[in-house]
């Protein structure tokens, strides 16, 4: 190695300088010129990598991975009314999408009905508006819930939407035990990065563990949480921070559930994760492998889980929305393609590919089809899915995997010392680490150290906007009219009784889920149900410190 550095390398450098003095990953870590077996001297194959489907799952959670079945192709979709989103779901299914993923509008995400004053201007904008069970019935009309798996990106009011889904299943004649899907239900990342919280952390954690306990009994195949690094990364975190903060949140949920009296293996197998796939291709592949190994070690070592399914980190991936540029939007197709490839090489169970126009508006039908085709091209044409974890053994990828695991572990130790993730969030530690990274990234772009094609290099005069999706401004009015009709038609006494019982459960220790289900089936609104919880639990207000 020294002979090589001192000989040929030195001679070449004398003639041609390298492009930069300093090569760095998005996380700021230096990238060396070359990686060799020396970098992996400490790695033990069986201990650190092992075989797919076996502890520590570095190489994947299933023994045959994509040779048996591809990842679920799950495009996140939702806008306007339940009718419009139902039509988009059917369009995506016709084009070969294999799972549904529901985007809710902001009023729904924050537990407000469409007629709430704060919902003005927001109804149906970033997702579908859901006020009552009737909307969810429309959303899944003609889509048999025993034949699809559905992911719902909903957090603060997750309990309400989960109950509505269960109720739609009942109306379709599908028993709860046969329902398959995921409710995001990850409230800690809302305080840390995404901002759609309602209640303070304490009662929010109680709602999370109520869902764990309820699903263990009633919906055994349902993923009760999707512990999400995605938003943490979008807010500016590095790859290492994404793994560290996500798993630290995961530890907090497991801890809370154990403290609530649940046995770790009763809910451990139903925990799932959600990661971002960013620009640094090889770092991203390594990140997924490192996260899987670290979680296996935490669940077995720290929590003493016995069931191998509790050790497995199963995850959904979305390509990085924040990396898409409004400039030269077609370039985004290419960015998304390699981000998706990184997710597949990292062993994801489910994938959403972003559309090229998302830095401008919600995706148009054409754009979302190209995004879905990107996944199908990787699956059927690239060949990378035909053997398991094909980058294993790369000196560089293994070095990165080891490094990300070690650094994430170091962060988790610091968070443990503060009293765990909720305490670290309350004192603003996680938010400020994320913010520092976001600012550094922006500075790198502005100084030109980090090239973003079309933004700070290779710019062109931009053409006018192409056809963008517009949410029909009438949606809000129609939604409010529908809500009024349902309120007029329902049995008000049944609503009051159910809401009263819910308030009692929320004030005491009973699981709130059966009461929410009863309220939902009486067509109580999302706003009414969450107002009860607001009354009992109070509301959270984040710090405005910069």
């Amino acid at each position, binding site marked *: 190695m020294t002979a090589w550095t001192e000989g040929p390398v030195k001679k070449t450098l004398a003639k041609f300088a390298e492009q930069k003095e300093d090569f760095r990953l998005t996380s700021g870590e230096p990238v060396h010129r070359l990686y060799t077996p020396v970098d992996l001297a400490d790695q033990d194959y069986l201990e650190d990598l092992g075989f797919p489907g076996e502890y520590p799952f570095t190489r994947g959670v299933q023994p045959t991975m994509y040779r048996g079945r591809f990842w679920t192709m799950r495009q996140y979709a939702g806008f306007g009314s339940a009718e419009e989103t139902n039509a988009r779901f059917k369009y995506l299914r016709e084009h070969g999408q294999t799972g549904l993923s529901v985007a809710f509008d902001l009023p729904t995400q924050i537990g407000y009905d469409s007629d709430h004053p704060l919902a003005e201007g*927001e109804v149906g904008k970033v997702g579908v508006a859901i006020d009552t069970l009737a909307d969810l019935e429309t959303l899944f009309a003609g889509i048999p819930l025993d034949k699809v798996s559905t992911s719902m990106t909903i957090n603060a009011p997750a309990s309400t939407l989960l109950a509505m889904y269960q109720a739609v299943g009942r109306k379709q004649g599908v028993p709860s035990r046969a329902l398959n899907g995921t409710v995001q239900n990850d409230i800690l990342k809302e305080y840390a990065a995404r901002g759609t919280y309602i209640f303070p952390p304490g009662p929010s954690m109680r709602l999370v563990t109520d869902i764990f306990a309820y699903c263990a009994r009633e919906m055994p195949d349902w993923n009760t949480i999707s512990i999400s690094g995605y938003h943490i990364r979008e807010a500016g975190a590095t790859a290492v921070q994404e793994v560290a903060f996500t798993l630290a949140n995961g530890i907090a949920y497991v801890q809370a559930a154990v403290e609530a009296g649940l046995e770790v293996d009763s809910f451990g197998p139903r925990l799932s994760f959600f990661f971002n796939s960013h620009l640094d291709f090889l770092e991203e592949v390594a990140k997924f492998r490192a996260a899987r190994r670290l979680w296996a070690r935490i669940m077995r070592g720290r929590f003493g889980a016995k069931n191998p399914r509790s050790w497995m980190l199963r995850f959904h991936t979305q390509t990085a929305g924040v990396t898409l540029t409004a400039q030269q939007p077609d370039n985004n197709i290419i960015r998304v393609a390699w981000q998706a490839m990184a997710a597949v090489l990292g062993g994801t169970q489910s994938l959403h590919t972003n559309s090229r126009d998302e830095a401008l*508006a919600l995706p148009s039908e054409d754009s979302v089809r190209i995004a879905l085709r990107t996944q199908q091209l990787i699956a059927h044409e690239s060949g990378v899915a035909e053997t398991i974890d094909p980058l294993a053994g790369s000196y560089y990828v293994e070095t990165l995997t080891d490094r990300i695991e070690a650094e994430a572990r170091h962060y988790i130790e610091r968070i443990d010392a503060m009293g765990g993730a909720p305490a670290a969030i309350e004192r603003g530690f996680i938010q400020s680490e994320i913010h520092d990274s*976001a600012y550094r990234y922006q500075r790198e772009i*502005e100084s030109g150290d980090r090239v973003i094609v079309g933004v700070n290099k290779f710019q062109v005069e931009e053409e006018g906007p192409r056809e*963008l999706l517009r949410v029909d401004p009438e949606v809000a009015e129609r939604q409010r009219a529908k809500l009024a009709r349902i309120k007029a038609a329902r049995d008000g006494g049944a609503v009051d009784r159910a809401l009263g019982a819910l308030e009692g459960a929320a004030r005491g220790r009973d699981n709130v889920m059966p009461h929410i289900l009863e309220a939902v089936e009486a067509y109580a609104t999302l706003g009414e149900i969450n107002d009860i919880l607001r009354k009992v639990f109070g509301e959270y*207000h984040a710090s*405005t410190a*910069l």
Partner: protein
Amino acid sequence: MAQEKIRVLVAKPGLDGHDRGAKVIARALRDAGMEVIYTGLRQTPEQIAEAALQEDVDVVGLSILSGAHRHLFPRVVEALRRKGLGDVLVIGGGIIPTEDVPELKRQGIAELFGPGTPTAKVVEFIRKMVGAERESGRDVEP
């Protein structure tokens, strides 16, 4: 003669919780020597105008990614006018389709900064606009 620092209120109207852009801009403005106050999330136009009044700011910077800008940005301008703050410079950013820009400008948003805008451009714009007003005699410290 030392001039008072330019004061900026960075605000997130509506329900959108994505504040990476708002916070990055806030920090860049502060690094450029301005006084920056952040409202936090989920502010109504009235709350933003009230904060602008209390904090006696020269500039209000709004950020929205949810598509509610056409509804909410003009309401902030109205609320500021009602409080006698019609002179405050209002700028906006976020996911704003180019075709919405002329209408928003007509309604009193001085400039809109889309994704990929260098923070230096925002700093320069604020300095130019606020500086010009100060030179014309308004708000100049004795």
